[in-house]
C-alpha cells in the first residue's frame, strides 16, 4: 500500500497545533466540499481531506501516525510496522469511516486496527443515521439523444472492499446502468444497494448517479423543454411557408404564420424530452438573407423602389 502524507494533504507543517489543523480543515472543506465546490476532482480531494483530518484531529491517532516518522513521502510504498499501535492508550470505538477511505487508513486506523473499536458504523456519524454503509455519488455524462431515447451506460467506480482477513482493498468496479428515456440534466438515479457495504450487519449504502447532459450543437435544454434556433429565408417568414424543423425525434414540417418576425417563438407541443408531462419544443425564428448575387441584388433593388417601408419609423428621432 502507499503511504499517505496527511500533513501534506492538509497543507500544514508537522508541528502544526490542533487549532491550525482545524482551521486548515475548515478552509479546505469549503474549497472541496462536493456540494459547493467548483473543482473538478472535488469528491476525491474532499475524501482525502476527511481522511487526513480524521487522523490529525485526534491526538492519539496523530501521535501514533507521527511515530511512523517524517521519512515517508506521499505515495511511497509502505507496510505498517509489526508493533504498530503498541504503547498507546486508545479510546476504543473511535474508529473513523472505513468506507471511502484509503487502504492505508483502514490498515492503520480502521475497524481491525488497534484504533478500531467494536462499535460499528463509526463511519457515518451523522446524528440520526443508522449503521449503514456509505452512499456514493457518481456522475455520468450522456448525449441529448440518449436522454431522449434512453440507453445504457457503463460506469467505472472505485469501491473499498473488505477481504476475508479484514483488510480493505480499493477495487475497481464496473456497472452497466440503464438510463431511462426522459432523464433531464442534473437528474439523479438511485441504485439501491450499490454503495459501500454496511458495518456490523448494517444495510449496504446506495449509489446516486447524477446525470449530466452534454451541450448539443442544435438543441438547447430547459428541463424537459428544448429550443432550437431555426434559420428561415425572408420570403418564408413573409409568406408563411411550410418549413422543415429538426426535433429530437426527427425533422417535422412546420407551417410558419404569414408575416412571421425574427425572434418569434413557435411551440411544438410534446416534442421535447419524454416524461409524465412531456416537454415542448420551442422554435425561435432567425431570418437570414440569401447570399449576395446579382439576381438577389436586383430583386432587393426592386423592393426598395416599390415597397414603401421604413423599419425605423417607430424609433424616437
Amino acid at each position, binding site marked *: 500500500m502507499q503511504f499517505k502524507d496527511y500533513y501534506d494533504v492538509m497543507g500544514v507543517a508537522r508541528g502544526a497545533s490542533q487549532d491550525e489543523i482545524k482551521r486548515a480543515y*475548515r478552509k479546505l*472543506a*469549503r474549497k472541496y*466540499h*462536493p*456540494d*459547493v465546490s467548483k473543482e473538478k476532482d472535488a469528491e476525491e480531494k*474532499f475524501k482525502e481531506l*476527511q481522511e487526513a483530518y480524521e487522523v490529525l484531529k485526534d491526538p492519539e491517532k496523530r501521535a501514533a501516525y507521527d511515530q511512523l516518522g517524517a521519512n515517508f513521502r506521499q505515495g511511497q510504498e509502505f507496510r505498517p510496522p509489526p508493533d504498530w499501535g503498541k504503547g498507546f492508550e486508545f479510546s476504543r470505538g473511535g474508529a473513523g469511516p472505513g468506507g471511502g477511505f484509503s487502504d492505508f487508513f483502514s490498515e492503520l486506523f480502521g475497524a481491525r486496527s488497534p484504533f478500531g473499536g467494536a462499535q460499528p458504523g463509526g463511519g*457515518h*456519524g*451523522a*446524528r*440520526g*443515521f*443508522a449503521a*449503514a454503509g456509505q*452512499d456514493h455519488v457518481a456522475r455520468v455524462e450522456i448525449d441529448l439523444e440518449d436522454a431522449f431515447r434512453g440507453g*445504457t451506460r*457503463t460506469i467505472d467506480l472505485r469501491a473499498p*472492499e473488505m477481504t476475508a482477513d479484514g483488510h480493505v482493498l480499493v477495487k475497481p*468496479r*464496473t*456497472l*452497466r*446502468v*440503464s438510463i*431511462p428515456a*426522459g*432523464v*433531464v*440534466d*442534473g*437528474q*439523479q*438515479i*438511485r*441504485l*439501491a444497494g*450499490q454503495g459501500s457495504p454496511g458495518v456490523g450487519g448494517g*444495510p449496504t449504502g*446506495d*449509489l*446516486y*448517479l447524477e446525470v449530466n447532459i452534454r*451541450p448539443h450543437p442544435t438543441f*438547447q435544454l*430547459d428541463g424537459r423543454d428544448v*429550443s432550437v*434556433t431555426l434559420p428561415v429565408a425572408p420570403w418564408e417568414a413573409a409568406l408563411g411557408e411550410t418549413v422543415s424543423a429538426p426535433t429530437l425525434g426527427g425533422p417535422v414540417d412546420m407551417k410558419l404564420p404569414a408575416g412571421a418576425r425574427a425572434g418569434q417563438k413557435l411551440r411544438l407541443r410534446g416534442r421535447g424530452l419524454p*416524461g*409524465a*408531462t412531456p416537454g415542448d419544443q420551442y422554435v*425561435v425564428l*432567425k431570418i437570414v438573407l440569401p447570399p449576395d448575387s446579382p439576381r438577389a441584388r436586383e430583386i432587393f433593388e426592386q423592393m426598395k423602389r416599390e415597397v414603401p417601408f421604413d423599419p425605423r419609423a417607430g424609433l424616437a428621432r
Partner: protein
Amino acid sequence: MTNIDWILEGEMLDESVWYAFADFCAVLRAERPWVLELVEIGLLEPHGAAPEAWRFAARDLLRARTTARLVNDLGVNLAGAGVILDLLEERRELIARLERIERLIED
C-alpha cells in the same frame, strides 16, 4: 464484484416519485425525529397535513441528503444548511439560465 453482465435499473428521482414518511426515512436511513426536525424548520416541505399522510418528493430526498453531508462534513447547523441549500438551488437555476441566454446571443 462485477455487475457488467447485467444492466442495473435505478429509480429515477423525478417528479413522479413520492415517498411516505416511513419509506422516506428508510431510503435516507434516517430516524424519524431527524426528518421531523427538518420539516419543522421548513427545510423539507412534504405534501399532506399530518405525518401519516405526508408525501415527500424526490427533491426532498436530495435536500435531506445534502443537509446530512453539510452537517456532518462541515459542522453547519440546520439553519445554515437551509440557507446553503436554497442558495445552491438558486445558483443552479441561474447558471442554467445564463447558459441559455449565452447560447441565444451566440446564435
